[in-house]
C-alpha cells in the first residue's frame, strides 16, 4: 500500500483546518498539554511526512505514538477526518523505513498465530506461578525487557493456564430451536487472558438458539499490528480471517471483544483492503460482523429470566473506545446490564473516556498510561460499584491493574459473564 495513495492520506489530510477542537477531547493532550501531542499536531506531522518535509525517521514515529488511537478526536472532528487512520498509516510508512527485528518477531509471528502466542502466555504464566516473576523483579531481570516493558509487566496479572479454545468445542449446538448459525471470532486476548468471557459468550448464545462455530485457522484481528506500524501484516491477517470464515455460511459473525469487532468492521476493513482485489470479499465479511451486545439486544432481543432472589450488585460500565468511538455502540451494553436481575447500573463520570490501556499503549507508554488510568479510577471509585463492566479485554486488563493500584475492591467483568450467571442461577 503506497502511503500517499491511502484514502485517508489522499482525501482527508487537506481537510484539517487546525481548528484545535481535538485538543479539547484528547486524553493524552489533557495530560501533556503541548502541541506536539495534539491530534491536529499529528495530522500536521502526517502532512509533513507526505510532503517530504520530514523524513520517515524513528523520531517522528515516536512522536506519532503519543496517541492512544482511542478515536476520540476522530469522532469529534468537525471536518470529519479519521485522525487515527492517518496516524496509523504514517506509523506504517515510517516503520517500513525503520524495520526492527524484535518487533517483526512479535507482530509478524508471535502475535499472529494463536499457537505461538499461547506459548508466550504460558511462559509468562509459568513465571508467575513459580514465583519467578517476583524473583525476576527482585533480581532486576525484568529490566532487560525493551522500553517500558519492565514496569508494564505488572499489568499482566493472573494469567489463566488454559485458553478458551482448549476448553470450548469447535461447534456448540443451539439449545432448543436453532435460530442462527453464528461464527464466533474468538480474539487472542479473550482466548488467552479471559477464557471465562468466551465460555459465557458461547453459553449465552447457544441458550438463545444460536449454533456457535469457532472456525479453526483464525488469526489475530490485526489491531495491535495497525497500532504498531505493521499495516501490511494487518492486511495479511485480515485476508486470512476472511478466508477462515468464508468457508462457512454464517448468519452472523460475532465477537465479544470491542477491539476485534472494530478491526473487523467495515470502516477498518475498507482501510486495509478497500483498494485491493479483496475489497468485495472484505465487504461481504464485514457486513456480517457484529458486536455481541449489539447482537443480543437488536437481533436476539434477549431477556434473562426474572429472579427476585438475585443478589443486588452495583455495576458501573466503562465504554471501550473501540466500541463507543469506533462503532458508536454505547446503549446496548448498558441495556443488557439493565436487563440482568439484581444489577443496579450506576454511571461513572466520563464513562466514555479512554482508560489509557489501548492495547499495547500501556506497555509502551507505561507512566502516561497510568496517569490516564488514575483519572478513570477516580471516577470508578466515586461510584462505589462492586463490579466494573466493560467489553474489551485490553480495558479489562488495564482497569484490573487500576483496581489493584488503588486498592479498590471492585471486580472486572464482561456484561456477558453476568448474563451467563443469571441464566445459571435460574437453572
Amino acid at each position, binding site marked *: 500500500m503506497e502511503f500517499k495513495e491511502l484514502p485517508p492520506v489522499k482525501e482527508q489530510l487537506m*481537510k484539517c*483546518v487546525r*481548528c484545535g477542537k481535538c485538543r479539547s477531547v484528547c486524553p493524552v493532550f489533557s495530560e501533556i*498539554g*503541548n*502541541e506536539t501531542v495534539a491530534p491536529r499536531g499529528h495530522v500536521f506531522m502526517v502532512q509533513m511526512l507526505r510532503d517530504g518535509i520530514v523524513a520517515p525517521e524513528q523520531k517522528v514515529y515516536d*512522536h506519532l505514538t503519543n496517541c492512544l488511537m482511542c478515536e476520540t478526536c476522530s469522532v469529534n472532528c*468537525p471536518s470529519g477526518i479519521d485522525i487515527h487512520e492517518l496516524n496509523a498509516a504514517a506509523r506504517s510508512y515510517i516503520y517500513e523505513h525503520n524495520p526492527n527485528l524484535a518487533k517483526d518477531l512479535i507482530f509478524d509471528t508471535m502475535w499472529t498465530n494463536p499457537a505461538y502466542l499461547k506459548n508466550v502466555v504460558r511462559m509468562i504464566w509459568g513465571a508467575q506461578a513459580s514465583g519467578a516473576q517476583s524473583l525476576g523483579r527482585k533480581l532486576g531481570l525484568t529490566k532487560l525487557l525493551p522500553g517500558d516493558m519492565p514496569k508494564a509487566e505488572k499489568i499482566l496479572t493472573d494469567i489463566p493456564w488454559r485458553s478458551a479454545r482448549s476448553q470450548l468445542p469447535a461447534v456448540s449446538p443451539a439449545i432448543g430451536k436453532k435460530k442462527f448459525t453464528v461464527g464466533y471470532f474468538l480474539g487472542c486476548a479473550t482466548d488467552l487472558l479471559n477464557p471465562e468471557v468466551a465460555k459465557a459468550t458461547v453459553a449465552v448464545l447457544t441458550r438463545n438458539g444460536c449454533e456457535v462455530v469457532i472456525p479453526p485457522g483464525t488469526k489475530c484481528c490485526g489491531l495491535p499490528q495497525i497500532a504498531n506500524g505493521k499495516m501490511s501484516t494487518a492486511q495479511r491477517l485480515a485476508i486470512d480471517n476472511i478466508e477462515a470464515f468464508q468457508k462457512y455460511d454464517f448468519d452472523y459473525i460475532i465477537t465479544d471483544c470491542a477491539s476485534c469487532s472494530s478491526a473487523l468492521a467495515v470502516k477498518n476493513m475498507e482501510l486495509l483492503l478497500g483498494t485491493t482485489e479483496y475489497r468485495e470479499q472484505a465487504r461481504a465479511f464485514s457486513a456480517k460482523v457484529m458486536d455481541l451486545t449489539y447482537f443480543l439486544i437488536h437481533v436476539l432481543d434477549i431477556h434473562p429470566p426474572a429472579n427476585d432472589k438475585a443478589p443486588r450488585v452495583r455495576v458501573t460500565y466503562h465504554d471501550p473506545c473501540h466500541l463507543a468511538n469506533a462503532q458508536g455502540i454505547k446503549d446496548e451494553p448498558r441495556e443488557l446490564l439493565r436487563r440482568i436481575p439484581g444489577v443496579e447500573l450506576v454511571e461513572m463520570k466520563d464513562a466514555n473516556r479512554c482508560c489509557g490501556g489501548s492495547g499495547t499503549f500501556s506497555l509502551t507508554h507505561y507512566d502516561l498510561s497510568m496517569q490516564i488510568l488514575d483519572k478513570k479510577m477516580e471516577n470508578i471509585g466515586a461510584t462505589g460499584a462492586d463490579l466494573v463492566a466493560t467489553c474489551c479485554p485490553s480495558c479489562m486488563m488495564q482497569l484490573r491493574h487500576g483496581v489493584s493500584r488503588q486498592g479498590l475492591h471492585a471486580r472486572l467483568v464482561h456484561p456477558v459473564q453476568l448474563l451467563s450467571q443469571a441464566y445459571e442461577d435460574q437453572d
Partner: protein
Amino acid sequence: MDKLTIQKELLKMFGPDRLLSDELDLMYYSYDSSFLTKLESTSPYAVVFPKSTEDVQQILRFAWANHVNVIPRGAGTGETGGCVAVEGGIVLDLSQWNQIVDIDQKNMQVVVRPGVIHAELNNELAKYNLFFPPDPGSSLMCTIGGMVANNASGLRAVKYGTTEQYVLGLEVVVPNGDVMITGGMKSRAIKNVSGLNLTKLMVGSEGVLGVITKIRLRCFPKPRARGIALAVFDNLDDAPATVLDVYQAGILPSGIEILDGSAIKAVNEFKPHIQLPDAEAILLFEVDGNPPSVEFEGNVIREMAGKRARSVEWSTDPQRMAKLWEGRSVTAAAASRVRPDGSRIFAGEDISVPLSRVADVLRAIRELGRKYGIQVVNYGHIGDGNVHTAPVINPENPEEVEKVLQLVDEIHLLAIEMEGTTTGEHGVGAVRRRYAPLEHGLAHEYMLKTKQAFDPKGIMNPGKLI
C-alpha cells in the same frame, strides 16, 4: 543572538521539561488555525511553558537584553497567525498556566491566569450561578488570555458585547520585563474611570504590547430562561430588515444569526435530517432572561418576523431549541463538506459591516465567488453585521489557492468600502495587517507610536496587528 545560544540560555533558566528546542518539536508551533500558516509555516527558535509571572519576566528580561522576539500563545486557535513566530523568536505557550485564582462571588468577579479554557471557566462559574458572557465558537479550546488579547466575542455579542466589556484589570509583563497592573493596583471596582484606560488598550493588543499574565473579569448572573425563533425568508433583503424591525420594537435578542442560501444548502447536504427549508436566508433569534420576559420577547419577534418571513417558529422547549439551533451549530463544519475534494478555509472569514449593508455585502460576496469560480458559504452574526465567509477550495491546488487569495483580498477591501472592517472578532495578526493603514489612516501612525512607547526594541510579537 543566534538560535543555539538562545536555546542554551533558556535551558539554563527552565530546564528540559519546560522547554522545547528540538527542530521536530518546534515544527508543531508553526501554525494556528489560519489558512496563512497552512501555506507558510515558520518554526520558533524555542517554546517555553511559563507557570508564573516571574517566569515571564525572566524570559522578557533576557529577550529585551538580547533583542530576541517573544510571541505569546494561548491555544493556537487564532485565525490570523497571531501566535506564530513569523519573524522568528521564542514562543511562550501559556495554555498550561491555567489556574482560576479567585472566584469572588460577592463582587461577581473572577481572577484567572491566561491559560484557562473558556468553557472550563464557565463550567466553574456555573456552580456560582455566574457566567462570563462572550462565547466564541472556539469556547472548548481557546484560552482566556487569547480571548483578551484578541478581544474575542461570539454569537451573543449583540446583547452582551465583546471581551473588553468584562475585563476590569490586567497584570501585564511589558517588553522590558516590568510588571504593570491596569485598572487600579488594588481596585475591585466595577466602574472605574481613573487614569488613561490601559486595560482597554491591552484588550485586543494581540500580544504586541506585552504578555497578559493575570486577568480580572466581571461576571454576569446566569439567565434563567431561553427561547429560539427560526424565520425563513424568500428575499435576502427581508432578513436585515426584520432584524431592524425587531430592534425597533424594543427587543435586544441575545443572538441573531443568519444562514444564507449557500449555508442552508451546505447544512442540508451535510446533515439531511436537519431539513432546513430551502430559502434565500434564514434567521435564528435567541432571547434569554426570565421566563415571562423571554415569552414576551418571543411573541414580539414572532410578530415582527411574521411581517416578511415565509414562516416563523418559536420554541422554549430545550429539545426543540437544540434542533432549531443545530443548523447553525453545524454550519462551520458543513461548509467543509460541500465539496468532497475540498475544504473550507479560514481566510477573509470575519468581515463586519453595518446592518444596513449586510444584504449588499452578501450579494457582493456571492458575485465575487462566481467571478473567481469558487464556492463560498456565508453565515454569521447578523445582529452585529459580522459575516463569516467560508470559501471552499482544494487547498492543495496552487491555482485555486492563488485565486482564493485574490478573492479574499477583494472581500477585505469590500468590507472597508461598505463602511465596515476587515475583522469583527478574529483579529488582524499577520493576515490582515496590510489593511491597517487603509482602515485607520492617521490613527495607524498613533498606533505605531503607542507600540514604540511600550516596545521601542520591537521584540513583542513583531509582524502582527499594526
